[in-house]
């Protein structure tokens, strides 16, 4: 069994070893080993290809871009996803555009790792999930693993990918343990985590675990939920969702993020367009359109938890069949 954070450092270690053009830098990542202890030992092992930077997020993404189009394969860490806005210009206006507008002269092989997500009582600007901010930017891949195995395999795939990849690590997953194998995982592929005939629940990151817990509770009531982990949020594996929906007829998309503008809305829209005749029901569970509150009393109510999810499914299925 391997912890999620170990899976991260292992993937980095292996890719640094495999390709000398891979470099890794960020704030407090080298000597201190990262504020989430996800990168210890890399500096010692790989020397100056791993280094600490100033608190300069735009310089980080900008230097990653410039170095990526001239021979390196940089992996950088933006400590919290909430700091992404400071780093965004280079990602959105340089990295995401370069391959297409250069008439395909050169792609931008960089990876941005970042810790994201709520539930750790860190308040409005250390808890967000930045996916919606980037979802509408063609040219960026967005990877959101939920297990240690996927974390390792997908991070390796991201580093080997020739395109800019945002790799989001949910803070509440760092201590999660799981089995790890050596099978590669392709970016852009979803995975069925649990089979069931009555409805399909689609999520990512912590949401997958919430959905699995809810599915167990629902099974006790005779409702069998299929749970799909999207794993990559851009590009989205619509085919996997559509195939499941064709069997179950009911689709619930669970997103830790605001109701408006999230990836769950994109999934819902794509499925509605492409699989209209398979749909008996389709709905979303998200967080409210509000900043994330600090107090545990508020934050717990803010996030879609397993109990709420199961209750939502029960009442929805009853109201639809009744």
């Amino acid at each position: 069994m391997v912890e999620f954070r170990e899976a991260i450092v292992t993937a980095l270690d292996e890719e640094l070893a495999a390709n000398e053009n891979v470099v890794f830098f960020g704030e407090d990542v080298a000597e201190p080993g990262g504020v989430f202890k996800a990168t210890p030992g890399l500096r010692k092992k790989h020397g100056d290809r791993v280094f600490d930077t100033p608190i300069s997020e735009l310089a980080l993404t900008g230097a990653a871009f410039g170095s990526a189009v001239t021979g390196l394969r940089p992996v950088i860490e933006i400590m919290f996803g909430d700091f992404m806005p400071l780093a965004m210009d280079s990602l959105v206006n340089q990295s995401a555009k370069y391959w297409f507008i250069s008439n395909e002269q050169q792609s931008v092989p960089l990876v941005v790792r970042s810790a994201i997500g709520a539930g750790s009582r860190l308040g409005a600007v250390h808890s967000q999930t930045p996916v919606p901010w980037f979802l509408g930017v063609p040219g960026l891949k967005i990877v959101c693993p939920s297990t240690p195995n996927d974390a390792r395999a997908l991070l390796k795939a991201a580093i080997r990918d020739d395109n800019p990849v945002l790799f989001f690590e949910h803070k509440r997953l760092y201590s999660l343990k799981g089995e790890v194998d050596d099978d590669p995982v392709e970016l852009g592929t979803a995975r069925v985590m649990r089979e069931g005939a009555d409805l399909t629940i689609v999520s990512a990151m912590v949401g997958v675990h919430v959905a699995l817990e809810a599915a167990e509770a629902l099974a006790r009531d005779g409702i069998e939920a299929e749970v799909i982990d999207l794993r990559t949020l851009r590009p989205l594996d619509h085919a996997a969702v559509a195939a499941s929906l064709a069997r179950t007829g009911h689709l619930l998309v669970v997103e830790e993020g605001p109701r408006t503008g999230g990836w769950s809305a994109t999934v819902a829209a794509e499925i509605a367009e492409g699989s209209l005749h398979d749909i008996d029901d389709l709905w979303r569970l998200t967080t409210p359109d509000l900043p994330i509150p600090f107090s545990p009393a508020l934050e717990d109510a803010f996030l879609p938890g397993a109990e709420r999810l199961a209750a939502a499914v029960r009442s929805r299925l009853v109201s639809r069949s009744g």
Partner: protein
Amino acid sequence: MVDSGPADALLDMYRRMRLIRDFEELVQALFLKGEVPGTTHLCIGQEADAIGVASALGDEDRLAGTYRGHGVALALGVDPQALLDEMLGRATGVCGGRAGSMNVIDLSNRLIGCFGIVGGSIAAATGAALSLKRQGRGGVAVAFFGEGTINQGYFAECLNFAQVLSLPVLYLCENNRYGEFTPYEDVTAGEVLDRPRTLGIPAEQVDGMDVVAVRDVAEGAVGRARDGEGPQFVETLTYRFVGHSRADPGAYRKQGELEEWKLRDPLTVARARLVDELGVDAGEVDAVDREIGAQIDEMRSAGLEAPLPDPALLAEASEFKG
């Protein structure tokens, strides 16, 4: 107070520093007990900056702090109980438990906010200075930030912005030598003061362990900004006696450094001046310590009994005003 001679004024500053110190120790103790959720960034060791600067401010002035903001909040007169209750995530917190330790806002006490994003305080104070200048009542805005922040885009952009517009703002850089776990010199080129100076902003350094020195330098700088001389810059030489935040064993500190700085604890320095130079009876200083200690004990019980916010507010609250 009738007589505010040097002894009374210093004893008052000592009392306010003692409040910050004891407050921070209480927060730390409650954090370790799991009562303060999330994380905390304490300013133990840096109390003289907060009190020295606040002592130079008037009713029209405004201040923006950082995630390490409990000290400036208390120095500006934020109700200590409401501040503690905020840390505890209670409805009676200064922001109703919505903000938490890193993001406290209390406009009624001249605190524009504490900003969880490194550099955010600089932007907030720069904009406040724009507003204060237009109001024409002589108000000055102060930005607190650490030396690690001078590598952030906000710093370069806002200092120039303020200088070309001749804004009444004091940039107060607390140089405690480390940004999180990384020493200044590892990630920063040149000296702090050279950066404002190259823009023509008057800049000076002060002993941040001596509250009188900080107050005097701050009075001068705030006075010049008030008189229309444009932005001012002060670097305090200080030291954080505790970890950056929750999980910090302090492995990055140079050997003996902490002990050496502790000899110049701002409370020790102020006490010595009171007793040795100003002839204040040591018993009088002890009485202050006891008084604050009793206040803290009361705050602790009241805070732990304070009500939690009602999650129903999430359904009622709006992302917009009106």
